[in-house]
């Protein structure tokens, strides 16, 4: 099968880590722009 159940623990860890880093970057940009705008106005 092609599903995630066939992945190695190392591959699962790398996938989870990359996804979490990217999601964190998105959240930083979201809140960062709101905070920066509130400080400038």
């Amino acid at each position, binding site marked *: 099968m*092609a599903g995630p159940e*066939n992945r190695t623990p190392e591959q699962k860890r790398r996938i989870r880590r990359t996804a979490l880093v*990217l999601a964190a970057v*998105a959240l930083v940009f979201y809140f960062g722009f*709101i905070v920066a*705008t509130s400080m400038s106005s």
Partner: protein
Amino acid sequence: MSTVATDAGAHEHHDDHGPAKGIKRWLFTTNHKDIGTMYLVFSLVMFFVGGSMALVIRSELFQPGLQFVHPEFFNQMTTMHALIMIFGAVMPAFVGLANWMIPLMIGAPDMALPRMNNWSFWILPVAFGMLLSTLFMEGGAPAGGWTMYPPLVLQTGDAFPFLIFSVHLMGLSSIMGAINVIVTIINMRTEEMTLLKMPMFVWTWLITAYLLIAVMPVLAGAVTMLLTDQFFGTSFFRAAGGGDPVMFQHIFWFFGHPEVYILILPAFGIISETIPTFSRKPLFGHDSMVYAASSIAFLSFIVWAHHMFTVGMPLTGQLFFMFATMLIAVPTGVKVFNWAATMWRGALTFETPMLFSLAFLFLFTIGGFSGLMLAIVPADIQYHDSYFVVAHFHYVLVPGAIFGIMAAVYYWLPKWTGVMYNEKLGQWHFWLSTIFVNITFFPMHFLGLAGMPRRIPDYATQFTDFNTVASVGAMGYGVSQLLFAYIIWQCAKGKGEPATAKVWEDPKGLEWTVPSPAPYHTFEEPPHVSKHDSFD
């Protein structure tokens, strides 16, 4: 060029489970091919919905005076047309192509995060259902333009929170899709597929995904601030409370300009696949194409204020944004010359995907050149908010992004469905689209230079002739797209000559090593990347 299928399906695994039956297959699927198909179908539906709105606009502008709709409804149509075409048609089409092709091109069995992939798609119908429902609300749909500038947008009626929430959902879907693309490309490539061996479509999508993660949260933040200004008493953009409405424009275009490249970079990747195949030569300067796409992405972050030269800014600011914008022509020129060099002395044939790619090359370049004209500050002050701008961005987005998508659909449709599309009808679709797209948008340059402002339902009588021509072109373009839907429908039903695994004459890439139609599960064992299928 197509031949009858004879290849044995080396990748068929008869012990595999197939797709679920009925509606459950589509609701709960985590298969990248199913999800890619759903994205593409959704995009086609939205293309016709947004296109219908364009036809309302062009019907009203067929003659001066008010004929068919009230000015308020006209403004709703311009706003909704843009939102639907950008977020509902072009972006989901590229995500659909990414879902279908990236795992096949890098030798991965599926996307890295298949359940999130399902969620990313199913958010979209909810978002657009919500946005379209505003047409039936008190006060109508949003009418302040897709840029949602305050204070105008704050005058929207009941539709306002629905607009904001639907933009949040579209952004969430895009961010999740982008995370999935990056995680897949970084972690799921077959071992021999090093980064510089990747096809250009995968490369341009990787760069696009990084752009999406950087800028979609910025748009989400901007519309969140609009929402709190409207309902929670904040004054981010309210001048009366000490806020700055121009700040919204800066934030919006910090998202909006990279968004332009989000809408065009995957199309660059597509024609970097099609032109070599139909020229029977490898892509000229693969690595320089990667560096050029990366440079375009970087520059897209430092040019945003060219959208707002007329708002007022220091001379140094104007000069910086003018020169930075002009600089984008350098990597774009690298790409255009590389595509031309790929065709140079190639054994060219002109099947439908190649025709759309060539039209892309010529017509997108026209859009690029008018963009350079708009980058010149003193000239832009004349062109700003005129039909010249409308002509410019439609040349970039219709014969640019949408022709790129059409080239991709014709190129990979036999791989998806297992049958060749009707070449004769494809050629008809191409010629009708290309002729009508120019009849629609070329006269808009003259209208803009003569002073016709954009976003108006009525105009002075001296603009009549070019407007009538543009409206006739738009009707022709709209009707000719029914042919596109018919061609796809025929293939989806399996009507057509069976396609071989390679489909075309010796194309490069792993996607051509699997049978046509591509089996439900592919590359369960990591494939070997032969020298032929490597792009370095």
